[in-house]
């Protein structure tokens, strides 16, 4: 399968934090959920992809092109939402449209105003009068209105109420169906990703812990809930991490079926991305 985004051995060092050999690929036409706790390195990785941060090492290819050498060409085809609000709040959506139609060659004014209507955003109101959720919707509308081939979205649903989050998720899915678009979507609201992401990449403390298809993760991985006595019978090779609760042990296993065949202990539950994150970060080996 053709990769729309390829990251190899991305390293970036700060005084108190570093990205360590971050590598993953996003196949064409797919949504990748990029998850991790706050400060794990999601935003730094995204900023490196977009050259917002510099002096990093490693290779980043977008559409098969080098993200530094072919920066202008690549950015024509990318839609971006960053985690911080970024439109000057004295502007109006009309001002954004006027500017963007001179910035993007493929800017689609009709599409932009359709999104404004869909999101109930008034075109002539100053952004400062918008709620946090409305501002996020305006940013999403802007990111979508030049027919991008790749969307890079850093926490696009944070600050949105559950209804708006579902709306936005549906829009992302419909884009994938209609257009030839791929999405890298970072979020700590992992419940949203379980429904829409084809791939999950999990970063912790600047390192990629896993990058797999969502189906593989949610179908194969599982949580075994058992007693201490039962836990002690499990071979270390057969689990990834465990967490000791008050009355039971929660054990993260990479393959529910294999585990069930080998051990007839405890209860094996399907795992959620939230549980996966907590166990991978807080669990013991």
């Amino acid at each position: 399968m053709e990769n729309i985004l390829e990251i190899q051995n991305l390293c970036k060092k700060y005084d108190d934090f570093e990205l360590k050999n971050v590598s993953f690929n996003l196949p064409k036409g797919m949504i990748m959920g990029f998850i991790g706790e706050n400060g794990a390195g999601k935003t730094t990785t995204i900023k490196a992809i977009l050259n917002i941060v510099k002096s990093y090492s490693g290779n980043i290819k977008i559409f098969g092109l080098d993200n530094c050498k072919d920066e202008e060409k690549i950015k024509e085809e990318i839609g971006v939402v960053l985690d911080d609000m970024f439109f000057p709040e004295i502007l109006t959506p009309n001002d954004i449209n006027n500017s963007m139609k001179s910035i993007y060659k493929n800017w689609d004014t009709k599409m932009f105003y359709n999104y404004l209507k869909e999101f109930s955003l008034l075109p002539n109101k100053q952004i400062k009068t918008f709620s946090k959720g409305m501002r996020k919707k305006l940013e999403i509308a802007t990111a979508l209105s030049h027919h991008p081939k790749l969307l890079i979205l850093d926490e696009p649903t944070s600050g949105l109420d559950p209804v708006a989050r579902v709306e936005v998720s549906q829009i992302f899915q419909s884009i994938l169906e209609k257009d030839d678009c791929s999405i890298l979507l970072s979020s700590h609201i992992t419940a949203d990703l379980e429904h829409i992401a084809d791939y999950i990449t999990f970063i912790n403390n600047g390192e990629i812990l896993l990058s797999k298809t969502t189906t593989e993760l949610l179908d194969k991985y599982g949580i075994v809930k058992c007693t201490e006595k039962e836990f002690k019978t499990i071979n270390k090779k057969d689990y990834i991490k465990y967490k000791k609760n008050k009355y039971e042990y929660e054990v993260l296993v990479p393959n529910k079926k294999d585990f069930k065949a080998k051990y007839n202990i405890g209860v094996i539950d399907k795992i959620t991305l939230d549980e996966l994150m907590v166990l991978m970060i807080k669990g013991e080996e």
Partner: protein
Amino acid sequence: MIGFIKKDLAMIKSNFKLLGILIIVYTVMGLLGEMDVSFILPFMSVMIMISTFSFDNYNKWDAYSISLPNGRKNSIKAKYIATIFMILVVSVITTILSFVISYANTKTINYEQILVSMLGTIFGTLLVLTFMYPIIYKFGIEKARIGIFIIVFGLVIIGSFIAQYLDLSFIAKLLSFLENYLVIILIIITILMVYISYKISEKIFMKKEF
């Protein structure tokens, strides 16, 4: 780049009313024969443009602008071009009004004096841009305000020291020698200054991380 200029001008459109009021005040004061405040208007236009840095900084626009096609280069170019555009437009309006005021008051128009005054004002305002923009790009708008205060204060002290202890008669001689070419020299110096300032700002911003 046009898109970035549109964005900067859209950010200051609420200040156009203020500029309009100041133009009326200037005209009325001129017609009443009060002091000439024409130089204030182009300076105001630079200050208004500088305020766009505050909005950009507060709303974290710079990081986003880099994600746009050719965003790093175009956002700097746009700031310089939008500021120069504002200075020129306001200077032309002020000059036309000065002609009108001059004619209304004396029934004659002192073209030379008004044009020299306009050129001096444009030079002064561009001098502000030349010094301030690289400092803003390097240190950010908040620190730049303090930096500018220190620079101006330093220049005043150095200037007063030079004026007090050094013989400046050679400058007067030089100016009288260059009298015929003064306007052309001023224009060339201004263009060079702005170009160097732009290149410094570009170098700073191209390396900057957000």
